């Protein structure tokens, strides 16, 4: 997270959404956060279609075997500095899928996670709250520099 951190980084975060096997619940809540009612675009946050344009990676789902490498690749493709926000409990700990033969998660087992959003699925406000947490974390890192 701290690598190559500049002061302007946190102003308008562009997010890339990566689904690693979630049930769609968290995914639609992320989209709901972008839609008029919650409208995170007022903070400069928007979803982008390519990891190379993104500052934030929103990960949902418990990471299946097939997607392990792909998630890592998406993470590596993102330019530094980057923030990873894990949305929903199945990415945090596995949730109802905690015992399985086809999962390699939780997400922090595969890529480093900065902020965990707890909820199944979290409300859009909880996702916004997580972004605020990420800002605070970035500011603490900035202050240390």
């Amino acid at each position, binding site marked *: 997270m701290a690598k190559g951190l500049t002061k302007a980084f946190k102003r308008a975060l562009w997010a890339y959404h990566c689904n690693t096997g979630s049930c769609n619940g968290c995914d639609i809540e992320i989209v709901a956060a972008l839609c008029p009612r919650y409208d995170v675009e007022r903070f400069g946050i928007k979803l982008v279609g390519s990891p190379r344009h993104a500052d934030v990676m929103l990960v949902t789902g418990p990471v299946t075997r097939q997607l392990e490498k792909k998630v890592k690749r998406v993470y590596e493709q993102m330019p530094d500095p980057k923030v990873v926000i894990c949305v929903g409990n199945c990415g945090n700990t596995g949730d109802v899928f905690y015992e399985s033969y086809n999962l390699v998660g939780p997400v922090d087992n595969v890529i480093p996670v900065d902020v965990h959003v707890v909820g*199944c699925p979290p409300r859009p406000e*909880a996702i916004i709250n997580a972004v605020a947490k990420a800002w605070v974390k970035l500011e603490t890192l900035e202050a240390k520099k």
Partner: protein
Amino acid sequence: MGFSMLGPAFLQMFKKPWTNKFPAKYAPKNTTKYLADVGAGKAKLNPPVATPEKFRGKIVYDKEKCIGCKLCIRVCPCGAIEFKEKEKKIKIYLARCCFCSQCNDVCPVDCLSMSDEFLLADTDKYSKDLIVE
């Protein structure tokens, strides 16, 4: 044929925006400072969309009432509840919970309930705030 969306889109310009401006209208320059201001009462956060009655949020555990019957552990779909053998009490990891409130239904002494707190996000998934015991 026509563009039937034009009318509604035009009318929308004269309507009040529907956005719920949580937590602030725009991103503050410095979030840490802003939050400190809020703590000191200088600034105010916009509240989130109100939760209804019986909303399924963070679990509240009444330790005194609990009799250690382990029924909640039996029905929990996510293995979120851990039994503390010594004390005969339970420990709930919120990061594993799926907020189904099945444990509340099954509890024979009603020691579990659901609050309306849902803004749960942390840098550490097993932080103190996210464990109920």
